[in-house]
C-alpha cells in the first residue's frame, strides 16, 4: 500500500458496521447533513467536507473547503439550527483565513495565510489517519468476537507451601521470656477508711438538731479521726450538707470564695 492509500479514505475499506462516517452516507451534491449530532466538532465537519472533494488531503483546495464550511454554517443558521460556539469560532477563523489568502502576497499578515492553511491541512490529515487506523483496528480479528480462547480452561493453580523456620535458641529464649513475663504478681487492694454518705448524713443532721447556731462544716467531723478518714468525712459531710439544704433542713453560708463553709439547722 502506498502512502496515499493510507491518507485517503477510499483506499482503506471501512467496514460498514464499524464506522458509519457521515460523509459516506451523504450524496454527491449539496444534500448536506444538517444534523449537528453527526459531527464531533468543526474539525470533524471539515474533514467530512474535505473528503467529499475526493482528492488526497494534501491536494485539497483550502479555499473551496472554507467556502463549503461557511455555506454549511449559513444554511444551518437559515434553518435556525442552534450552532455550538466552536462551529462559529471556526467559521470566523475560516472567514479570516479566506480573506487573508485572497490578499496580494505582499499585504498578507504574519503568520502567513499559507502557513495557517497548511496547519489546517496537517491537522485534517492527522485526524483522517487516526480515523482510518481506528477503522482498521476495529476490523481486525478480535478476541471474543472473531477468535476465541478456550471456553473452559482448567486453570493453573499454584498452592503456596510454607516452610517454617525457627531455631533452638529462639525457642528457648521465647520460653524464658514467657516465664519472666508471667512471674505471678499479686495485687493487694488496701483497705481504706471512708465515711459513707449515709453515715455522714445521719451524723450531720443529728448534730444540726442539737445546735441552732452557725457551725463550720469542719466542726462536724469526728475529732480524733485518722487524717485519711477525715478527708473522706469532709467530702461526705459536704455532700450531706448539700442534701440537707436541698431538703430544706439546713442553711449553708460562705462569706467569701474558698472561705469556711457554715451550716445551720432550720426548725421545722
Amino acid at each position, binding site marked *: 500500500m502506498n502512502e496515499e492509500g493510507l491518507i485517503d479514505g477510499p483506499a482503506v475499506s471501512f467496514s460498514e458496521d464499524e464506522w458509519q462516517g457521515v460523509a459516506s452516507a451523504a450524496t454527491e451534491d449539496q444534500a448536506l447533513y444538517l444534523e449537528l449530532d453527526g459531527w464531533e466538532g468543526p474539525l470533524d465537519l471539515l474533514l467530512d467536507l474535505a473528503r467529499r472533494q475526493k482528492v488526497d488531503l494534501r491536494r485539497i483546495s483550502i479555499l473551496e473547503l472554507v467556502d463549503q464550511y461557511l455555506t454549511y454554517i449559513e444554511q444551518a443558521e437559515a434553518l435556525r439550527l442552534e450552532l455550538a460556539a466552536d462551529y462559529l469560532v471556526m467559521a470566523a477563523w475560516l472567514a479570516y483565513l479566506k480573506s487573508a489568502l485572497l490578499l496580494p502576497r505582499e499585504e498578507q499578515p504574519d503568520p502567513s495565510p499559507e502557513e495557517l492553511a497548511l496547519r489546517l491541512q496537517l491537522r485534517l490529515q492527522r485526524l483522517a489517519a487516526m480515523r482510518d487506523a481506528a*477503522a482498521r*483496528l476495529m476490523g*481486525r480479528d478480535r478476541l471474543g468476537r472473531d*477468535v*476465541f480462547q478456550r471456553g473452559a480452561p482448567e486453570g493453573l493453580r499454584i498452592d503456596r507451601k510454607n516452610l517454617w523456620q525457627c531455631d533452638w535458641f529462639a525457642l528457648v529464649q521465647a520460653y524464658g521470656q514467657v516465664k519472666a513475663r508471667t512471674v505471678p504478681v499479686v495485687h493487694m487492694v488496701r483497705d481504706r477508711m471512708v465515711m459513707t454518705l449515709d453515715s455522714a448524713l445521719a451524723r450531720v443532721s443529728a448534730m444540726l438538731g442539737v445546735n441552732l447556731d452557725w457551725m463550720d462544716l469542719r466542726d462536724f467531723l469526728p475529732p480524733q479521726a485518722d487524717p485519711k478518714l477525715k478527708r473522706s468525712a469532709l467530702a461526705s459531710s459536704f455532700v450531706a450538707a448539700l442534701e440537707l439544704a436541698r431538703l430544706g433542713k439546713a442553711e449553708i453560708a460562705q462569706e467569701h470564695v474558698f472561705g469556711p463553709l457554715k451550716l445551720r439547722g432550720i426548725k421545722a
Partner: protein
Amino acid sequence: MDELVRAVEATLFAAEEPMSAEAISTHLGGANVKDALAELEEQYRERGVQLVERGKRWHFQTAPDLAHLLRREREETRRLSRAATEVLAIVAYHEPVSRAEIEAIRGVQTAKGTLDVLMEAGWVRIVGRREVPGRPVIYATTPLFLSHFGLESRKDLPGIDELRAAGLLDPVEDALAAAMDVPDVGETEPAEQESTD
C-alpha cells in the same frame, strides 16, 4: 511426542490467561520453552485452534477463518463509540500520550468517560506523567489490547510504518516546521503520485 512440548501444550491449554515464556518456564520448573513454543506454533498452524504470541504472551485461540462458525449471538463484544475507537487508535499509535495531545489531534474535548471505557476494557492504562508543566497523566495500551486485537506487538498496528514514514505520527508543529523549510516538496509530490492511483 516430546515431553516438554506436551507439557507446554497442556499448561497453555489449561491457563486462564495468556502466559509469557518466562511464566511457562517457571511453571515447568525452569525448562527452556522457546523451542517447544515454536514447535507447537508450527504444529497448530493449520488447525482449527492456533497458538499465537501477543505482546510477548502466548495463548491458544480459534483460527480466525472460523469466526463465522463461532461468533456468539449472546455476547456481542461491546460496541465502542466512534469517539472511543478514535481515542484508542490515537493512544495506540502515539503512546504514551496525554489527554491534551489526544484532543489536539481530534479537535474536540474528550469526555472523561471515553478514556474510562477504554481503561475499564483493560486496553488502556495510565503509565505515568509527562514531566512538563502541569505534569499531565499519560496513557498507553496494555498487553490485553494487543491480545484482543490480535497484535504480536505495536509494530503490527495496521499501517503504522507508513504513517510514521509519512510523518503523520509527528506533531503538527514538527510537520509544519519541516514543510516550511522545504516549501516546494508539498506541491510537487502529489502531482507525481497521481499516476499511481
